[in-house]
């Protein structure tokens, strides 16, 4: 949205000595976000009005001419290729040193004195696009220079001054006025400026209508739900033509391309008041009748941009007695648009339900200046001022024209007057600073609220243009007062509150512990990946894509399914990193999404429905040159250390995973906390990968519940322990795990058993292996004797012999 300072000067006088940058800043601080302040004159610096006195052919170029141009105080020779050059023509001349856009494209270029094919040329006779005036002075071709002959301008005058292009345009971020339907027109912005600078704002005036009841215009609103007001009238005898320069200039200043006088007037009114309007060619309206009703889904309508549009459900349409003539509030139809032959028109100034316009416009992907305004909830009162203003302007532009019908007004305005009782104390308490009562009252009055003050309360009537959604509760009044009073006046003060109970968040604490431990003690790198799962690895791992939560409106196919596991993305990242690193460890701690399981978060406050489960997982991938046994055991060691640290009881259970060459589940009782294993290396695309890959994944959310907070100190041993080594030979099939637990069963005096060597080969029978281990014996109430140890060793051996057919090596 552009604010034109010249335009708002119609209704107010800004304080003198106020520079445009300050206005931009003040608006930002009190009302809206200003993106840029553009000074028109600045961009036309060095461009003056010149008269072509003489034209001769360029000796060396067919398409160029050499002009002697009168610039008032001096004459310059300028080489020009303009196709419409004539002697005596008034042209715009960019002098040496000024900046132009070459052929209307690219960056600004500073003009130098130069020779063009050997002929000296000082400056440039410009086309409108070369000085950014293409909307104001449209050209048929890029070779056509700007012809100012009709405008009776003084030769030598700066162009900005001659055309009175002395406006300052303030570019306002549309997002910052989404909630302010009143700020989508110049008058609304003028109101804000008047409030900020404490200057008088003239009332918005329109002339009374003089109507002839020559044409019986009928308006029928069938959908009162969505059409809050419809004003229509017919004007006859208009003459479609280009608008005068002054009007075009104003439109151009706010970024609108002038089209013809009728369309320009409707646009002008929209930019002045914020009320979109539409003009129909009356000859195309059957039965002099306007009907407002909903379309049927799937019907086709051709909008005035020539597009065939398939109408969505509930699209609100403007119709005549036979057909659709406009998409209400969005765009007119091709069948009834204003053409050069149009002589009679029907003017529409209406108000529609914001939600309906927004839905239709979204469904069609058709956003227009009109729909952008209607979807903000416009004030239905505006529609009347707008149509009167438009009539006034059209009658001015077309002296032969007259209003040929009554003004038809179907008014179903649903917005009630809003009265608010606001305790003075509320304003001051929220603000944190006491604002004088009179100041509060003044600010609200400047913003056109009606205010009465009695027994420390303000009774406020909200003006209609703020009452459609913007202002509805006392807190809104706090904001109105505070922003104009100035947020700079607030005193920053830390809140005074009660000390409260500490909140211990075990999960959170444990997250930090494990992240630091993995990174600093275990050389793991923490990665963050997207929630969108890597579909190639989903396939590699044999997961079923249909079991993933699906994104309905993703902008790209890669962003279509949510992780059920962290592994696909981790493996994909591991694969990427193999280009740079041979060995590395990465991990991630994040939520994954399981559409088949109910989670613990409620969908709403009714407590009946729950969101899908989205537990946090901790997962890692190790890429290593170690052989599979080493890598597997190293990873097992990592998990053992982790469980040991948290004092979680756990056991391993073989678990067959299709993507693993070996894999185990980590369990506590019957609950599976996670799993780990070695990846089947055939899953990697590249066959020449010389590494092994291990993975692990733990349901962190459930693991946290098992973390023990009851760590107790164990008394240091009072009596010495005795260590012995033992080596036995058993069949290859005997597992260390079973053997180890068997040894512990023999006596509580056996404190530890630690495997240090596994050997197969020379001196060991085929199919057998030698296991060597340290044993540690200790008693809590006496020093063990050699005889005790010998006895225990005997028992161990006897037992292993019995259970595993073990022989002493």
């Amino acid at each position: 949205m552009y604010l034109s300072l010249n335009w708002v000067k119609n209704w107010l006088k800004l304080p003198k000595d106020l520079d445009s940058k300050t206005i931009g800043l003040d608006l930002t601080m009190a009302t809206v976000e200003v993106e840029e302040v553009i000074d028109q004159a600045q961009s036309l610096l060095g461009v003056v009005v010149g008269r072509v006195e003489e034209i001769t052919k360029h000796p060396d170029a067919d398409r160029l001419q050499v002009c002697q141009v009168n610039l008032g105080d001096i004459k310059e020779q300028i080489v020009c290729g303009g196709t419409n050059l004539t002697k005596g023509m008034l042209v715009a001349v960019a002098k040496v040193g000024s900046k132009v856009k070459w052929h209307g494209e690219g960056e600004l270029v500073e003009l130098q004195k130069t020779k063009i094919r050997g002929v000296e040329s000082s400056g440039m006779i410009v086309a409108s696009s070369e000085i950014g005036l293409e909307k104001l002075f449209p050209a048929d071709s890029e070779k056509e220079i700007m012809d100012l002959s009709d405008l009776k301008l003084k030769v030598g005058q700066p162009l900005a001054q001659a055309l009175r292009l002395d406006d300052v345009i303030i570019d306002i971020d549309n997002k910052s006025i989404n909630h302010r339907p009143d700020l989508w027109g110049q008058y609304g912005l003028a109101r804000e400026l008047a409030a900020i600078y404490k200057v008088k704002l003239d009332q918005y005036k329109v002339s009374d209508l003089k109507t002839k009841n020559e044409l019986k215009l009928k308006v029928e609103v069938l959908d009162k739900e969505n059409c809050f007001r419809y004003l229509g009238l017919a004007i006859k005898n208009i003459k479609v033509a280009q608008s005068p320069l002054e009007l075009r200039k104003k439109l151009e200043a706010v970024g609108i391309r002038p089209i013809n006088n009728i369309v320009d007037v409707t646009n002008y009114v929209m930019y002045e008041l914020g009320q979109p309007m539409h003009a129909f060619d009356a000859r195309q309206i059957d039965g002099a009748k306007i009907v407002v009703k909903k379309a049927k889904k799937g019907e086709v309508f051709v909008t005035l941009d020539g597009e065939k549009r398939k109408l969505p459900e509930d699209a609100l349409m403007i119709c005549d007695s036979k057909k659709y003539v406009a998409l209400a509030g969005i765009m007119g139809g091709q069948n009834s648009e204003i053409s050069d032959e149009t002589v009679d028109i029907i003017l529409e100034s209406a108000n529609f339900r914001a939600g309906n316009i927004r839905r239709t416009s979204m469904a069609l992907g058709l956003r227009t200046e009109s729909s952008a305004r209607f979807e903000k909830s416009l004030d239905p009162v505006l529609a009347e001022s707008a149509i009167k203003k438009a009539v006034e302007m059209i009658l001015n532009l077309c002296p032969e024209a007259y209003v040929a019908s009554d003004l038809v007004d179907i008014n179903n305005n649903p917005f009630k007057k809003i009265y608010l009782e606001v305790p003075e104390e509320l304003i001051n308490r929220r603000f944190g600073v006491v604002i004088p009562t009179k100041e509060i009252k003044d600010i609200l009055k400047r913003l056109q609220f009606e205010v009465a003050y009695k027994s420390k309360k303000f009774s406020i009537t909200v003006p209609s243009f703020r009452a459609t959604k913007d202002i509805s509760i006392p807190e809104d009044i706090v904001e109105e007062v505070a922003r104009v009073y100035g947020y700079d006046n607030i005193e920053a003060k830390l809140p005074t509150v009660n000390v409260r109970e500490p909140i211990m968040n075990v999960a959170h604490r444990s997250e930090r512990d494990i992240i630091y431990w993995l990174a600093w003690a275990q050389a793991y790198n923490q990665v963050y990946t997207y929630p969108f799962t890597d579909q190639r690895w989903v396939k590699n791992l044999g997961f079923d894509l249909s079991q993933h939560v699906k994104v309905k409106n993703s902008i790209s196919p890669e962003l279509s399914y949510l992780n059920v596991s962290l592994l696909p993305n981790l493996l994909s990242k591991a694969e990427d990193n193999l280009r740079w690193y041979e060995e590395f460890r990465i991990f991630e701690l994040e939520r994954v999404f399981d559409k088949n399981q109910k989670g613990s978060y409620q969908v709403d406050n009714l407590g009946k429905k729950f969101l899908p489960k989205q537990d946090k997982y901790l997962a890692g991938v190790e890429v290593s040159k170690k052989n599979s046994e080493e890598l597997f055991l190293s990873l097992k060691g990592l998990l053992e250390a982790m469980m040991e640290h948290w004092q979680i009881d756990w056991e391993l259970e073989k678990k067959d995973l299709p993507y693993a060459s070996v894999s185990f589940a980590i369990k506590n009782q019957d609950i599976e906390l996670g799993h780990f294993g070695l990846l089947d290396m055939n899953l990697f695309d590249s066959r020449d990968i010389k590494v092994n890959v291990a993975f692990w994944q733990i349901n962190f959310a459930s693991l946290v519940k098992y973390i023990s907070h009851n760590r107790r100190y164990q008394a240091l041993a009072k009596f010495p322990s005795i260590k012995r080594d033992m080596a036995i030979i058993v069949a290859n099939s005997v597992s260390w795990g079973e053997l180890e637990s068997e040894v512990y069963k023999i006596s509580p005096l056996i404190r530890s058993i630690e495997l240090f060597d596994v050997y197969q080969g020379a001196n060991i029978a085929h199919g057998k292996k030698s296991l060597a281990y340290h044993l540690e014996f200790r008693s809590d109430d006496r020093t063990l004797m050699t005889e005790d140890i010998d006895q225990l060793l005997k028992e161990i051996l006897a037992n292993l012999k019995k259970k595993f057919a073990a022989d002493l090596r």
Partner: protein
Amino acid sequence: MEKKLQQLKEQALKEIKNIKDSGALEDFKKQYLGRKGELTQLLKEVKNLAVEEKPKIGKLANEVKEELADIFSKAEATLKGVKNSTHDFDPSMPGQSRPIGSIHPLTTIKYEIEDIFAQMGFAVYDGPQLESDFYNFTTLNTPADHPARDTQDTFWLEGGLLLRSQTSNLQVRMLERHGVPFRGIFPGRVFRNESTDVSHDHTFYQLEGLMVDKDINIGNLISVMKSMLSAVFKREVDVRLRPGFFPFVEPGFEMDIKCLICGGKGCPVCKQSGWLELMPCGMVHPEVLKFGNIDPNEYSGFAFGLGLTRLVMMKYRIDDIRLLESGDLRFLKQF
């Protein structure tokens, strides 16, 4: 006698300077301090002295003895030191690399800010990322058809669910669960369905804060934010509020921070304005409080949404947002 002692001392001091190895030092010890050494011999003569001279010379002799013992032990220590430094490897070779991993910069900044807020009594909470329309929009005073929904391109899932577009989804959830007074922050990732470039990603991180208590005002909000930012940037920072519209706050603000590069004078980073847009914030809308079962007549509060991703990029001068979730170890190992 006195003269002899002095001579002996000077001779010894001279000699010890030339001693370069332990053998020579051993000889020195024998010669001066040993049982048959020169000093011992001299000391033996003390008993033959006149009675009145005895104390004076005795004292001097002892002093000399102590002094010689002292220089001997110093020389011994020096020699030992030299001995230790005669090694057979080059200590200037690079240290043997010990494997170390890395913590993601988003984690580091998140924890830093969590700790700052913890000191101000804010607890850290976490919640769903796969969210309902109800908590992501409706309870935040953003009903269907609200244009404010446009500014957040939401990833919609089946069953009317969505990927949360803001960490504000936890405001009402937390008020429902914990009631008032409430002081909490909710860091986490949020999602917007938009195309990516160096400064936009569809997945990024926010840190939402919410405080609800009796008589919380705008000045409190400014002050808490200023304190937090000064702690983050480790220097006093200036902030300003200007109007900003977010349906779940009233009044709503944009908070700007005085440009840290130019100090407010204007530079390319702040586009000559002296200020950088930092975060949306505001006073909690009464509708939001009502959804959280809090009486807005009795309680008020503020909420803010800090862009963690942006802060990380500012702090480490990261010029491409997509690196953060690239998993690229060349990037991650720098942290």
